[in-house]
Structures are given as C-alpha cells and as structure tokens.
C-alpha cells in the first residue's frame, strides 16, 4: 500500500505528514489526540543518515511531548549495504535508534510498529521489532535476506531456499508466519482506524513474543527455553 493512502485511511486527507526522500514524518491527530508518526517508504535502505533522522524525531518527542504515542511506519529493504556506512558505524547508529525508541517506551510513550509494505533484517530490528509491538498489513512481507545472498552465505542452493520460502513458515516471508511465530502481534484488516485504536489501547508493554509464538504454535521452543534458564539450578 502507498504510504499516503495508508496515512489518509488512518488520519484523514489533512494528516499533515510529509515525505523527505525516503523519510516520512508528521504529527497527526487521532481520536482527538496527537500522535508522532515516523517512517520510511520506497523500500528504503536504512543507512546512518536515515537511522539518525528517525532517532531525532523520537528524541524530540521524548523531550517536547512527554507521553505522546509514536507510530512507526515500516517499508525498508534493510540496512544500507555500503562500505561508508560500515566505516561510520551503522550498527551504532541503529543501536542508537533502538535505544531511543526503547527509552521512549520506558518513559511512557506507547510505540507501535506497522509493516505496511516490506521489512528486512537490520532495518526492521531497530524499528518494528523494538516497539512495544509490531503489526502488519496482510500483504506485507518480512525477510531476513534476499534469497540469492542467502544462498551465497549458507551454501544452500537457491532452488531449495525458494522452495522452503513457499512452504516452510521459518522461511516464508508472509506476515502470517510472523504472527504465528509471535514476531508480529496481529494483522490489520478492514477498518484500519479501529485497528490502531485497539493497538494504542491494548498493546502490552512487556515482550510477549516468545509466549505468543508458543501459544500460536509457530515458535514452540523459545518461551520454554527461557523458562528453563530461569528455573535451572
């Protein structure tokens, strides 16, 4: 879905959000209350610059608008694959973005992630996956890596990975699998405003994903292993 169509459905035609290259931001009104919206579009590669741009808005929200909810709109192809970004410490910039979002959560800001097109890997770890919870539109896709690169690194044949991506929940990029595994809390269908309203009101603030993965059957071991470590003599 195009970001403007999404944002219009959520906040009306005068939402006030603006697009600056791949970066989206705005202060919108939802149910009479302001919400800070930060996002990316055009399957943005997240480099140092874009990570810092997002962190800037989060930090400003913490200091200037205590308690204001934050909505992260996610459409990314993952981290920017450039030597310059590695030199400049893109992992540090991403950790900074993640820490900023995490601090916002601890300071009482509800942070909701929504994958509205695609999300990959590093671009997702410090956005949707560090929010209170992440939601997704039904046609969205989430991946760790594109198949050709994955084949090179794992030495597994591309044909095998392609077949697994169609049939195996661990590899398939459809967001339904992420719901089953607990990584995505729920899909937003139909009345998107109702979905957002519900998310703002009911998203838990502790990390429930392993428990959700066990209850939903998509990730059976994680929660049990965590508990075993807690209980070990």
């Amino acid at each position, binding site marked *: 879905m195009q970001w403007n169509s999404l944002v219009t459905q959520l906040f009306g035609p005068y939402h006030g959000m603006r697009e600056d290259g791949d970066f989206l931001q705005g202060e919108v009104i939802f149910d009479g209350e302001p919400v800070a919206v930060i996002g990316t579009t055009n399957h943005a590669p997240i480099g140092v610059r874009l990570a810092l741009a997002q962190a800037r808005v989060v930090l400003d929200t913490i200091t200037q608008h205590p308690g204001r909810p934050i909505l992260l709109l996610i459409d990314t192809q993952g981290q920017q694959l450039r030597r310059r*970004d590695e030199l400049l410490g*893109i992992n540090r910039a991403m950790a900074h973005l993640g820490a900023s979002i995490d601090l916002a959560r601890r300071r009482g800001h509800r942070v909701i992630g929504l994958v509205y097109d695609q999300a990959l890997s590093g671009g997702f770890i410090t956005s949707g996956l560090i929010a209170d919870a992440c939601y997704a539109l039904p046609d969205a896709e989430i991946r760790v890596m594109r198949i050709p690169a994955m084949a090179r690194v794992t030495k597994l044949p591309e044909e095998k990975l392609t077949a697994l991506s169609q049939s195996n929940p661990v590899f398939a990029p459809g967001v339904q699998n992420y719901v089953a595994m607990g990584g995505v809390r729920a899909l937003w269908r139909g009345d998107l405003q109702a979905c957002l309203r519900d998310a703002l009101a009911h998203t838990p603030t502790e990390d429930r994903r392993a428990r959700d993965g066990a209850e939903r059957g998509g990730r059976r071991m994680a929660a049990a292993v965590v508990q075993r470590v807690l209980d070990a003599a």
Partner: protein
Amino acid sequence: MISYAECSARERLALLLDAGSFHEWLPPSERVMSPHLAQLGVPSAFDDGVAVGRATLDGRSVFVAAQEGAFMGGGVGEVHGAKLVGLMQRALRDRPAAVLLLAESGGVRLHEANAGLIAVSEVMRALLDVRAAGIPVLVLIGGANGCFGGMGIVARCADHIVMSDVGRLAMSGPEVIEASHGVDEFDSRDRALVWRTTGGKHRWLTGDCDALVEDDVAAFRAAAIAAIGESKPFTPAALEQEHALLTKRLHALDTTDTTDRDEAALLWSALGIADARQVPELSVEAVRALRTA
C-alpha cells in the same frame, strides 16, 4: 599470551573467568537443541552454539554467555537466542554484578531465518531491560568471525565493549556488500581494508568500543574486571550526546573528496588522530594512546 581468537567459546570461559567457577545452565547433556536444522541436513550442536551460566570474575558474581563462532558462524537461532534471553531475564531477577557476553556471531542464523530474526530482537530487548535495571552488560569481541548483523546492533546496546585488534564489529559483512554493490564498493578480499573499516583499532579510534586489548585472554579478563562497576543507564541527555557525536561523524567526510583515497585514514584525521595513515602498522598499545576523547 593465549590467543583469544584461537580459543573455542568454552576455552575462553575456562580461561577468562575465575578458575573452575563457571556453572552452566542447560549444558550439552540436556540436549536443548535446534528444532530447525535437521530438516536442512545440517547437524545441530548440543548447546546450540552458546554456553550460558553463572561464574565469578575476580570474586564477583557474574552471568556469562559465550557464543561458539565455529558453529554456524555463531549465528543466533531460536534456541540460542532464547538461552541469551533467559540469561538476561535471570539477571534481572538475581542481580549479578554484571552480565558478560563473549560475542562471536554473524547475526541472525540464516538457516533459521524468521525464528532467528525474532530471536535477535528478543535478545536486544532483554539486554536493554538489564541495562535499564542498572546491571552493567559487557560485550567482549575478539573472535575470528567478529560480531556482525543483528548482534552488531545488540553489542552497541551494551554498557561497555572490549575489542582486540583482531576483532571486528559491524553490521553487514564485506562479502554481502561486495555481492550487492560490487568489488569497487568493498573488496572483501582486501583484509587490510576490511580491518580498517570494521576492526578493533578503527572502532577504538572512533569510540565504537570502550577498550582495545591485545589478542590475549588475560588482557580480555583484565579489561572485563575493570569494566564491571560501570553501569550507564540511558537518559535523554546521554542519547542527545550520542546523537550529536554520530551526526558530527556523519558529516566528517562531507567536504572531503574521498575518491581513490583511504576513507578510514581521512576519518581518523578528521577526528583529530595524528598520523592517521600509520595506524594499521602501530601496536595496540600505540593505537590506544592515540585516542583523544
């Protein structure tokens, strides 16, 4: 001197912690293993590539995890990640003096794809919980595989990072960058370039690690002991300071023509490092002395 890089994860634990003090949780004999690897014809490890437990370091109680880089490149799978999350959650409950992570990882274990991605994220959130509780998290990086991918982000969420000059800390590996944008973007076989871009000396000079040591287990031990007391919870002021530092760095090379020039040396010069071009040849001790901030 015992090379930290050449040790296995378990050897590092045996040599770095107080002798005989490591008590493992979910040891290999409990066979808590990956549910996803067999379907790919890949053998699993009895500990899923990470040993977790409690120990003492210089007499102080610590919780510790050591990733085995030789197994699946240290990649984080469902069980591996859950062991780390369990360790972090237990630290919140039992409050050791510190949590040590002997990190050696390519990030998400690709063979477990979606499960691995979610796992890394859960580790990140759990680590941030420990840090927010005022328990210092120390990451040691010195293995041959480095600390990459999602674990490169997780590492930078910790209070304190110790690296050797052999270690590497980054997001994407050079091979992935070369495959994506070509050999002119990043020649992954140019080892000197790889280490100038992601290695311990570079990360020390830019402040991306907090201590630089020789490739020696005793040196890592000493640096970990020195770091135990330093908890640095995140505050808005601290994040503003970090933001300013990263913004300044982003623009450090903006007005410089870097075509066909050594960008690392240019960056070090821009950061005030004298004789930047000599850095790769200098000893660890000499490089340590160069950092101005």
